[in-house]
């Protein structure tokens, strides 16, 4: 159990020359606190409002952060209601003192001044995860998106306005490392003493604590999550405030769409999946799919299928990437058991040899006849996409006339066939002839 420590602000009433004799006054607790939690990095921006009693002129305060996971270099103070009139002139980290700094605040105002204090802490994390429930016919799905916040920062956050951020942030240092660094800005040109193992360990630990809610007032409806975009980030603000004591986690629902149309697809691509067809599920993050208002954060997805008798069957778990508005979501449900694709080389010939003046072979064509053996053992018709990669870009293809839909060129040495197989297709053969031009015959390829 971590020792619980509060960030403390202490007002020093007398000038610094008289440090030894000064009276220390503990300030009232924070009036309000806002947490902005990132998931791409172990980083939370904390902004708290406190009321400081200042005198006109120079004021000195002590700010302590011992036993927390705060990055001391990130601490700033401003007074938005008295902009320009209250300035944090100087922050001094005295010698031989760990976890404490002296602030020099210049104030043109005497009396109670509400100030914003902001800083970074590590140890608070959030993640998104999804629960998907496919309808029996697999044409629609219920999509639920949850947000889970865990606090292992060493600090209790009571009645905090909580926001979580989706986005890939550029960071130079880990906040957990900065929190453990002493002195806070390191040493000039010498090796820094990083002692953050403890903090790292604590964060890496994926021990799931049961999110038992502390007693609270009864609410008729789950809390709303307000979503908005800002720069390259997306912000989810949880309605009202949350109390997240150190060590606790909290789960909130952020999205619930009942009948989302989905499209199933089976894909065969040896380069990506080996020799098994992959089962995929598609939908678009747009209005037509009852979505499209916000990007979907990356997270774990658990997929179930609704059975006729209201029972569920577990299909698969996967990870989804971040999906911007209007982009298509591709959920990879893993290797398919009921749909098979097997490319078989049925015939091989070499032709059209050319010779140089010495009589040596300088070019030829390799002609391969491939048969793609397809099976659909499901009760539903399925769409299949087959990628074929060639050894080099000098090739042509002859398709049989009866082929439903021809190939599509993906890039210089990749093609793609697409077709629909009816339910319970025991075998379907797709045949094509590939000519590969070798040596000087490559000139003939287009």
């Amino acid at each position: 159990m971590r020792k619980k420590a509060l960030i403390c602000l202490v007002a020093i009433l007398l000038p610094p020359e008289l440090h030894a004799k000064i009276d220390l006054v503990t300030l009232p607790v924070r009036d309000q606190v806002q947490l902005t939690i990132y998931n791409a990095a172990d980083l939370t921006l904390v902004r708290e409002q406190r009321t400081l009693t200042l005198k006109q002129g120079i004021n000195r305060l002590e700010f302590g952060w011992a036993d927390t996971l705060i990055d001391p270099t990130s601490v700033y103070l401003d007074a938005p209601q008295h902009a320009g009139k209250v300035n944090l002139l100087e922050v001094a980290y005295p010698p031989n003192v760990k976890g404490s700094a002296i602030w020099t605040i210049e104030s043109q105002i005497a009396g109670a001044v509400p100030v914003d204090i902001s800083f970074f802490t590590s140890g608070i994390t959030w993640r998104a995860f999804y629960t998907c429930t496919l309808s029996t016919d697999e044409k629609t799905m219920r999509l639920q998106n949850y947000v889970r916040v865990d606090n292992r920062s060493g600090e209790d956050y009571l009645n905090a306005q909580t926001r979580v951020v989706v986005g890939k942030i550029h960071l130079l240092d880990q906040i957990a490392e900065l929190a453990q660094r002493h002195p806070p800005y390191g040493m000039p040109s010498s090796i820094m003493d990083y002692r953050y193992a403890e903090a790292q360990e604590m964060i890496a630990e994926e021990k799931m604590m049961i999110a038992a809610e502390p007693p609270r007032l009864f609410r008729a409806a789950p809390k709303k999550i307000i979503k908005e975009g800002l720069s390259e980030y997306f912000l989810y603000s949880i309605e009202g405030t949350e109390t997240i004591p150190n060590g606790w986690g909290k789960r909130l629902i952020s999205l619930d769409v009942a009948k989302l149309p989905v499209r199933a697809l089976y894909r065969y691509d040896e380069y990506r999946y080996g020799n098994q067809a992959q089962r995929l599920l598609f939908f678009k993050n747009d209005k037509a799919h009852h979505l499209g208002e916000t990007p979907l954060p990356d997270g774990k997805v658990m997929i179930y299928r609704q059975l006729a008798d209201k029972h569920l069957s577990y299909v698969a778990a996967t990870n989804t990437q971040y999906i911007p508005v209007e982009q298509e979501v591709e959920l990879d449900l893993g290797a398919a058991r009921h749909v098979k694709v097997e490319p078989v080389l049925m015939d091989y010939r070499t032709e059209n040899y050319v010779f140089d003046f010495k009589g040596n072979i300088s070019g030829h064509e390799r002609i391969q006849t491939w048969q793609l053996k397809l099976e659909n053992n499901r009760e539903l018709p399925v769409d299949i996409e087959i990628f074929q990669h060639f050894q080099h870009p000098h090739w042509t293809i002859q398709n049989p006339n009866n082929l439903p839909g021809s190939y599509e060129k993906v890039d210089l040495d990749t093609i793609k066939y697409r077709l629909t197989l009816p339910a319970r297709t025991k075998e379907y053969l797709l045949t094509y002839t590939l000519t590969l031009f070798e040596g000087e015959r490559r000139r003939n390829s287009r």
Partner: protein
Amino acid sequence: MKLTTYLIFMTVFSLLLIETSWARIKLVALPEREATVVRLDNPNATLLEEERVLTLQKGLNQVDFSWKEVQIRPDSIRLTVLKQPQAVTVLSVSYPPNEQALIWEIASPSGQQVRVRISYLLNKIDRLVTYQAVVRKDESNLDLSSFLVLRNFSGENLPASRFQLDYGETFESAVLSGETKRMQFFTAKKLPIKKRFTFDAAQLPWDPKQVGDNVGIPVYYELENTTDNGLGKHALWDGKARLYGEDGHGSTLFLGEDNAKFTPVGQPLKLTIGESRDIVVTQRQMRQQRLNERRNAKRNRVVLYDTKETMQVEIENFKEQTVFVTLKEPMPKEWEMKKASHSYKREHNREIHFDITVPAKDKVIVTYSYYRRNIRP
């Protein structure tokens, strides 16, 4: 330990020795230092300059200077005579064994007071510069604050000293040994910025579908260090910059941090904030064709040929704003552009840049074909 306490008279012991052997040698008191200036204008070393008044006697004088537990570079210690009624000569500098000290031997034509400046390089004391920027919600401009961080781990206390940066006036501060101090440096409001996205085809994967995860496109802000932009008075020093964005609700969001590079006046400063996942770039080579085969004298072997290669880059913008994307495309050693759908700039022989504007919720396809010349099989 304090340096000043080690600036001492020579000991009585040496006095006796000198009395017997070197009768002419006089001892000199090193008084308290004055006018200490800490020069932080060089990022690699910190220079201390201090003035002292020496009371010299006629003949040879020995001045003892020691720096126990203070991180002085001994070879950097210099003595400059500033004010002398009659010219004195520094005869020698000697380093006593096993001591962090030196002795100046100074010849004076008369008993007099001379003002000297002692300067030396001090290790483990330096300054950092950090930046904090708050970006407007529409990302058109930002407010920049800069902070100076003094770190003194040199062993020398610097009470009430003047600090000199590489421009501007000196300022007074005090920093004890072991202390770190962050001070407000300057603030500049409403600096116009440009937001840019960069796809470097030599660094990033070409097909995000193959990767199976988002390929983040790096995003940066660019601001110019010019007077028009409210800066331009001096170079911006290198240092860590943290960027925050106004959220429109009276609070801010942390956008990211980057190392600001040293930016002289007139030059742009680029600050990467993070990666965009709302811009998706898919690059594919669509064609490679062999051309212009040339043969040896016997005409039995191809010795040289060209290829014609076609590249296709699709940029999708899922954002609700128009974006400016720079495509960095690597090129072969010998090449010749045949056709390009958009204008490009030759950055150097092996790289070209396309600057592409992609409207909101739209996509742009850039294609270009070039000859790769004179390939030897």
